[in-house]
């Protein structure tokens, strides 16, 4: 029966080619646009580390000016980064299961041979825990160990791309490279790792990959590694040396901890409070106690990682899809009017209302399927366009299986909803009534 219905549907579609083409076009454009905007939204709103997003927490402490809040529009918020020396103290206290202080920097990779050119590489300065906390995959070697953190050893973990550039993709563990006049030893090479959004640093860009290597946080002091990310200050301090900068009230270090349970979360905030209490006695942290930890998704919300433009586009594109469905209903109705006599004849020859109804629904489902397929192609094009417009890295926005199935499903479902009323109208055509007028 289904195959017969499909056959009838194809036949009927051929008979009214223009109307059929219009319906397919309407559904295709609607699906194409809404899938394009949905994919971008889905990417921005995605969970970058589903296995651990509820045990990883960004830490904030209110060390800001006693006179005014960090953010005038959201006075309840503490600064989104911490000072260098507070990060140092938290690392030393080590009250989480794992913890890392970190920031963006960049280093000059100096040539070993005369004919090579030096170049600058983006570096993430972090502790050994960074790799285990964030499930970073390695292809060669491993993270440096905690002893290297403690002794501020010049070790480096390379990304696959930088290892490709420097060592032709070979296993480079143990190799050396010169940066800041210092010999660094390669501890490991990580595989492609591009969590989207870049949850560990939404402050300096949630959708761009800028790290080419990782070096120990403890080198900050000795090698004077400066942050290339944002820094914020409130206090008028005389800063004429590296030590003064590190001891200043400027906030420029990001701090993440791993905690196993909600109880640990409360306990950790209590630890933070105790630390701040101690600092208050030293005359720092003059604002009311305001220490918080945010899990990964809370941290993404905090930074409004999903752009408003993206939400507006999703809203408008679904209105667009509504227009496409209204078009489809109007076109279907029109088409069925033209089929009155055929339907009358089928009814007169014994086809029940059910059979006629099913046949109509199969016909719109076929149209929906065709529209969905073309819509997917359009969405693919749309995403390429968006990637070009926003200079997004390759592969950042692409259709995955979930979105492909969603697109086809949405196309068939919405066209069937659009087909319900016209199909019902067709069923009400009385048998033979239409035949008389011919």
């Amino acid at each position, binding site marked *: 029966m289904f195959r017969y219905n499909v056959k009838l549907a194809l036949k009927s579609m051929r008979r009214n080619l223009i109307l059929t083409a219009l319906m397919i076009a309407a559904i295709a454009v609607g699906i194409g646009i809404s899938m394009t905007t949905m994919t971008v939204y889905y990417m921005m709103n995605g969970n970058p580390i589903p296995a651990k997003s509820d045990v990883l927490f960004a830490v904030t402490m209110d060390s800001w000016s006693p*006179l005014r809040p960090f953010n005038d529009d959201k006075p309840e918020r503490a600064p989104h980064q911490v000072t260098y020396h507070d990060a140092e103290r938290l690392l030393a206290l080590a009250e989480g299961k794992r913890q890392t202080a970190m920031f963006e920097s960049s280093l000059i990779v100096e040539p070993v041979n005369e004919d090579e050119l030096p170049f600058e590489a983006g570096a993430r300065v972090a502790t050994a825990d960074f790799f285990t906390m964030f499930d970073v995959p390695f292809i060669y070697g491993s993270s440096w160990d905690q002893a290297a953190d403690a002794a501020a050893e010049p070790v480096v973990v390379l990304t696959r791309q930088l290892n490709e550039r420097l060592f032709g993709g070979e296993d480079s563990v143990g190799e050396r490279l010169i940066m800041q006049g210092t010999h660094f030893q390669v501890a490991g090479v990580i595989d492609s790792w591009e969590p989207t959004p870049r949850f560990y640093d939404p402050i300096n860009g949630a959708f761009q990959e800028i790290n080419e290597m990782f070096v120990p946080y403890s080198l900050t002091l000795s090698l004077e590694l400066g942050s290339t990310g944002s820094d914020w200050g409130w206090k008028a301090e005389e800063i004429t040396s590296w030590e003064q900068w590190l001891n200043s009230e400027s906030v420029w270090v990001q701090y993440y901890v791993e905690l196993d349970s909600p109880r640990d979360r409360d306990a950790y905030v209590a630890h933070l409070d105790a630390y701040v209490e101690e600092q208050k006695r030293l005359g720092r942290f003059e604002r009311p106690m305001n220490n918080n930890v945010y899990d990964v998704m809370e941290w993404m919300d905090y930074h409004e990682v999903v752009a408003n433009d993206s939400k*507006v586009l999703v809203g408008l594109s679904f209105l667009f899809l509504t227009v496409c469905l209204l078009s489809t209903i109007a076109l279907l109705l029109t088409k069925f009017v033209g089929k009155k006599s055929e339907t009358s004849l089928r009814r007169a020859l014994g086809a029940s209302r059910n059979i006629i109804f099913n046949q109509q629904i199969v016909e719109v489902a076929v149209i929906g399927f065709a529209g969905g397929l073309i819509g997917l192609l359009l969405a693919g094009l749309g995403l390429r366009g968006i990637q070009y417009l926003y200079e997004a890295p390759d592969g950042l926005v692409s259709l995955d299986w979930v979105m492909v199935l969603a697109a086809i499903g949405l196309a068939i479902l919405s066209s069937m909803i659009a087909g319900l009323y016209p199909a019902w109208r067709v069923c009400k055509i009385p048998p033979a009534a239409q035949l008389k007028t011919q």
Partner: protein
Amino acid sequence: MGFGPMMSALMRNKTGPALVALQIAVTLAIVINSLFIILQRVEKMNRDPGIDVNNVIITYVRGFGDDFDVVNSITNDIDLIKSIPGVVAATVSNHVPLSGSGSGTGLRTVPDETIESVGTGRYQWSEEGLDALGIELTRGRNFYPEEVYYELPETVMDTPSVLVTQDLADSLFGDEDALGKTVYWGDMEPSTIVGIIGHMHGSWVNWDKLGHVVIHPGKPAYTTNKYIIRVEPGMRDELMPIIEQKLGESNRRRVIKSNRSLEELADRSYRRDRGMAIILSVVITLLIGLTALVIVGLSSFHVTQRRKQIGTRRALGARRMDIIKQFMLENWLITTAGAALGVVLTIGVAYWLEVSFELERLDWRLLPAGIGTLWVLSSLAVFEPARRAAAVPPAVATRSV
């Protein structure tokens, strides 16, 4: 001609016309709100930055190694750049306007920490800075060369003179003349306003204080040195590789991090706005195209369906003109009903955008413009089917019975 046959046709099949009207309504809501967003973004991108954007080259260099002398490097680089024919002026700067990367500070008119400061972008460059960006000083004076010194990390800031934009001056001093007045930095160090810039944009194009800029004299000698270079009109693309090559050859202990036109940097800063405007333009083009095609398709079909009615009317004496009028008027009625509903929907969507996303309030003038366009477009869409309807010969009425 009476409304009779038309109304009876419309009333006989209410759902079809109602659907078209609804489609027109939603189309109007999307088109007007999208158009409003597009216009706003275009207006934002077209703001005058007060800078000679097209003739400026920005070069970032960074030295390395223990023996690297940053002051020497900057001095030699600037001399080298200025020796290239076609270069008008060059300076080292702490940041580059319109680039998205910058420094902000707060200024006060009285040295009192409890008073809210006025937020502003902050630049530090030499006496050639204004010329290197093509910025116009409207009143007062530029920096004297003797006020300009190298700012190393260990330098204690000493800033007797500053330049401010008129926009910042207004925010600080209101109606009073700011020239010659004193402003206080975060550390309460005073500076005298020696010159006023009519207008220039700072670094962050999305900041509401983009027009607030304070400039203090100096040559920042940090890890990364940012050079701002202005060239003779039309010579930019020719000079960019030459500058890069000459800088590269002159010192191997230094990396040229990037060498770009200011135009490119500014374009990048407006990338999101341009992207949004283009996406919405595509959306409304597709939408209008689709709605027009559907109207054409439906009207053509109705003409075929109603050949008999048309033939009968023709046989009873209706002229071709009357038939065309009937179809046009019918379509006009549907469009107008749709537009009326569309106005309500448009305002609803505009309200949602305004409340949820802090977008500006819709410019109401777009509504009549949108409805007018809709009338024209839908009339165009229905004209050809109507003309074909008018071509139905009166005899059709008699033949098929």
